[in-house]
């Protein structure tokens, strides 16, 4: 079983003193949720879990250790590993300090969708074993229960890793999934409809910054949104300023976002905010042929300056 393998790897790493701690997921306090876990002691590795509810992008925690000496083992899904790769490119952490436990990912189940499709379901009735989902004893197709970002996933396998637990999956759901997700829905909207959509959604935003704080790639010491001198964005959650914040965040993500959807999943008022950075990621893929976090050594398009750039606006 994959979970046992992960625990075994974690145990060995700690026991041999190869790392100072392991970052993974543990069972949550509510049904169909997991929580990030840090294991400093071999005994704690028993608590590690791996299932389609491991929603947090754990690369997010690496910012705590910038400039430090700790050696860190990190459990990474495809998108978590892509985020690590961006952090490496941006010199936020050193490769030698990381041991990546790679986990080819079958996608995350959205707990809400699960409950809608299977009312009154309890955790005991959901079994997950090496990519096969059984609900109330019957094998089920996971596709209809997936998180939006997972229906769009193209890289379920961690592009960088030191261990790999499970078989490589190769393709994600992006090509095969028939399920219409938020981004496709958004694509179909006219400009006016989009404007209306964001006006409405930004009216609901409480500016809690959960989206930003859950993102593995938002690590600025001082976020432009909270700067007071000058103050770009009002601290009050006014719809216009909320949008300004999101547009700023989206632009800072251009060419960096790894499309993990962590921002959207964190929003306490359920604004599908991941569609903004993910839409930009899609444009960059189409316009520049660049995909973030694939460890190709290429620099991100929006982070380069070339004197011979063919666009003249740059000069």
């Amino acid at each position: 079983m994959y979970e046992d393998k992960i625990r075994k790897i974690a145990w060995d790493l700690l026991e041999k003193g190869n790392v100072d701690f392991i970052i993974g997921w543990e069972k949550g306090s509510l049904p169909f949720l997991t929580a990030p876990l840090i294991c400093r002691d071999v005994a704690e590795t028993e608590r590690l879990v791996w299932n389609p509810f491991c929603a947090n992008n754990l690369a997010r925690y690496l910012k705590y250790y910038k400039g430090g000496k700790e050696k860190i083992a990190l459990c990474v899904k495809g998108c978590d590993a892509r985020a690590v790769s961006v952090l490496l490119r941006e010199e936020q952490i050193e490769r030698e300090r990381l041991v990546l436990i790679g986990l080819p990912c079958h996608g995350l189940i959205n707990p809400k969708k699960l409950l809608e499709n299977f009312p009154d379901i309890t955790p005991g009735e959901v079994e997950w074993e090496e990519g096969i989902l059984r609900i109330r004893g019957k094998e089920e197709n996971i596709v209809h229960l997936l998180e939006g970002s997972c229906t769009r996933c193209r890289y379920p396998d961690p592009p960088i890793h030191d261990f790999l637990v499970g078989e490589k999956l190769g393709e994600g759901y992006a090509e095969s999934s028939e399920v219409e997700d938020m981004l496709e829905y958004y694509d179909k909207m006219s400009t006016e409809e989009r404007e209306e959509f964001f006006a409405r959604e930004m009216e609901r935003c409480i500016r809690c910054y959960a989206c930003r704080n859950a993102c593995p790639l938002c690590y600025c010491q001082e976020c432009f949104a909270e700067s007071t001198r000058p103050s770009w964005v009002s601290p009050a959650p006014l719809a216009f300023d909320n949008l300004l914040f999101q547009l700023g965040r989206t632009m800072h993500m251009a060419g960096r976002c790894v499309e993990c959807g962590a921002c959207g999943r964190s929003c306490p008022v359920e604004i599908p905010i991941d569609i903004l950075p993910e839409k930009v990621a899609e444009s960059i893929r189409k316009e520049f042929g660049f995909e973030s976090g694939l460890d190709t050594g290429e620099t991100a398009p929006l982070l380069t300056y070339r004197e011979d750039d063919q666009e003249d606006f740059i000069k």
Partner: protein
Amino acid sequence: MKHAGIVKKSDFITWLASREAVITSERLIRRHKELVSSVSAMEVRNVKETVFPGFGTLFSYRWEDRRWIIEDIPVTAKKCTVLVHPCEATALNEVLDRVFMNGEHPERDYEKLRSSLELVTIACEEPESTCFCRMVGGDPFRRVPDTLFVVPLEDRLYVECEEPNVWELWKKCVKVPSEVEKEIAEKEKKSREALPDPPLSEEVPEQLYRLFEDEEWDNIAWKCLNCGACTYLCPTCYCFDIHADGRLKGYQLRSWDACMFPRFTLHASGHNPRPGYRERVRQRVLHKFSYFPMREEGRFGCVGCGACVEVCPVNWDIREAVQRMVKKSGAGYARSS
């Protein structure tokens, strides 16, 4: 003195419809759509929005003829009937009121908004997996003072209050048959049993205070993202920020702030007394479970509604944090009643 009565559901709904405005919380609608569906009720995510909105304007200012002209902008309040669960009513009545209306200097806007509300407490028959009101002195059938207490039955409602004269609805109430009394007592017992966490003991606030420097806070706090989801959606968190919008002309605004943000305690000197997640998470826990009750006659600053548990993106569960520290402190639980 407690007065109890029975009213027809249709009479209750007619009474509601006759109120100037009705506000309910999201969780109440989730459970009792039938009570409010025919009334045009405004839905709030968090009950504190009714008295302490996410942002508001304090005054306007402008620089004119080489002097500042400042104009007061008081809030406008209209009479509202608010339907909520016991934890939410307690948050207003016993936490926020103590903060904003205690003593000689009540906060003007809060007082105005608060005094225009009448609260109807709807008992909880099905506590959710996030609920823990009993742990902090509450109860799913708590008769919150100064509110109309209601237990929805099949086609009737059981009602209780202290002052029948203030509730117009009372005219429609009849005496409670003894079998209904029994039914209520049974429901009450069942609902209470659905909440596994027993009440915390009176010593908890003092004991937790002694653990201020404990290393365990580091483990407790580690996974927290330091966002504002929990505090902004908590009905008892009351911190706010004041800021000017506009340089020579504009408004002074007040908006929610959160102790989870690094900038919350940042001094002008650059020093930050709560520099890391450890200090900030500790503040959130101790404020509610130690400082507030020590100052406010044992009233916990948390009403156990579980909103924070429900929204947290990393499943940081305040119950676990408190239980871990309580266990360490040796304070334990009150003998269950």
